[in-house]
């Protein structure tokens, strides 16, 4: 669901202003955080969606990685997970479901969490994801609100999964061409979350359905600052720009673009394909991290030393007119 529509619905819900609620419905963030005691807070999140690839085992891995990502984006450590499944039991081979769940379980294991159970509903189209509970120290919650002027913005996965999945579904690219995107979607944001905690990072978000700029905007808004990105620093998945030029752009990208129309300023030259990709909804995207300038080298070093990727994509500036500024060439 698009960011604008969601916001208007959530506004109709009653507020839960308990002192234990550290992050709730009141602020758009990746997951909810509830403080149990001065040392411990729970992080809870749920996410599930329809298949993005044909292979059920890989789909299971992608969906689970995506669900766990919200815990990592809050700086947490996942503890337990529950499967949430919709499946056309009477039309599809039950082995397909088994493979989806195997893929998901494999990722939960890799995350160092445990799978406790789940719930299945019969439906016309398969859907899969996890409800995940994680923990974090209440004073070390990494939210959308903590970015400070002067911080450097780091992104841990390249953009373009939305158009690549669309191209794959349309048969325009081969499985092999989509492989970098699949590798990216099944990569946990775990190491990035650990590095953030080691370096005392205060603000991050994970890039998913609202696209790179949608989530960047939530973070800039929450932190009452503006984000400035250099288009040449933004990493793209291979073939993503070609697919965007070909118009293989999911409807969500247009919804995101529409919602952000008056919130994003473009300066200089930015290709139309690049623009489209900045709004492209991401599946299991990377973390966008705001890190203080004197820690950025250390963050990049630690991530790279553990085989992770990271790109410096922008910086946090004072909010003047537009919360998001994209600097072209």
């Amino acid at each position, binding site marked *: 669901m698009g960011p604008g529509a969601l916001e208007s619905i959530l506004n109709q819900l009653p507020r839960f202003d308990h002192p234990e609620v550290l992050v709730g419905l009141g602020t758009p963030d990746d997951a909810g955080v509830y403080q149990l005691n001065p040392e411990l807070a729970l992080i809870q999140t749920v996410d599930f969606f329809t298949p993005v690839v044909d292979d059920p085992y890989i789909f299971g891995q992608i969906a689970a990685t995506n669900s766990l990502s919200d815990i990592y984006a809050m700086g947490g450590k996942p503890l337990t997970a529950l499967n949430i499944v919709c499946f056309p039991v009477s039309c599809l081979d039950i082995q397909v479901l088994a493979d989806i769940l195997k893929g998901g379980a494999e990722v939960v294991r890799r995350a160092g969490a445990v799978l406790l159970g789940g719930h299945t509903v019969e439906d016309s189209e398969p859907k899969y994801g996890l409800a995940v509970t994680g923990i974090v120290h209440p004073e070390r919650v990494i939210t959308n609100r903590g970015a400070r002027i002067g911080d450097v913005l780091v992104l841990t996965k390249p953009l373009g999964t939305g158009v690549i999945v669309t191209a794959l579904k*349309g*048969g325009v690219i081969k499985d092999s061409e989509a492989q970098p995107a699949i590798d990216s979607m099944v990569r946990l944001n775990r190491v990035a979350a650990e590095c953030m905690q080691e370096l005392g990072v205060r603000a991050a978000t994970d890039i998913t359905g609202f696209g790179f700029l949608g989530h960047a905007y939530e973070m800039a808004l929450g932190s009452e600052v503006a984000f400035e990105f250099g288009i040449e620093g933004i990493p793209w998945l291979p073939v993503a720009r070609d697919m965007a*030029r070909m*118009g*293989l752009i999911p*409807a969500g990208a247009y919804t995101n673009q529409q919602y952000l129309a008056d919130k994003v300023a473009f300066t200089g030259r930015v290709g*139309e394909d690049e623009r489209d990709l900045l709004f492209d909804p991401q599946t299991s995207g990377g973390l966008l991290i705001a890190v203080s300038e004197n820690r950025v080298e250390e963050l990049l070093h630690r991530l790279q030393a553990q085989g992770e990727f990271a790109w410096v994509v922008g910086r946090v500036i004072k909010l003047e007119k537009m919360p998001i500024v994209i600097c*072209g060439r």
Partner: protein
Amino acid sequence: MREVDARGLDCPQPVILTRKAFLEAPGETLLVIVDNQVARDNVLKMTQSLGGSPEVEQSGDEFRIYVRPGEVIGGSEGAATTPVRSPGSIYGSSTSFHSSPAIMSTVGNGTVVLLKSAALGQGSEELGRVLMKSFLYTLRESPEGITTVICLNSGVYLTCEGSDSLEHFESLEKEGVEILSCGTCLDFFNLKNSLKVGKVSNMYSILELLQRASKVIAF
């Protein structure tokens, strides 16, 4: 005319079907019918990326997209003999189609004029505007060899409401010169709904035109 009826289909099916039809008969005009804006925008992007010149007619909830074959960017040499122009904003109501083989049969061999601001030259802004008007008038009088005029940055003011050079552009367009305004620039100056002449273009297409031009005159 070949027709693709993609009504009721979700992304990416309209694009896939259009691409298939376009590639199967690259020399023919194609009519694509879609019933939502996402499909419209995606089909426009796709056909432009294949070098086609799409024009949109809207009736109710339906969009009828006429894709004329145009020059195939990076495509076969045989496409060089097909018409290249399609005046009119891609988002506006479509205007009649002029082809002027007398001037240039391919964009790749022609001269592209690049207007980087609304004023010509540096120094006095006021003088620059006078010179620009004069330049466009002169260009209109002798457009030989000119295939395309591209307006960038504040240059897009020249093609929008309030410009005192609109008649020159219209005249150039009638002569078969393609007038392009940078979409990002129109957005930036909030002029998207004020465009009066020519088409909206994007940096990808603009770069292609500049790379393929035999000569670029830039101000």
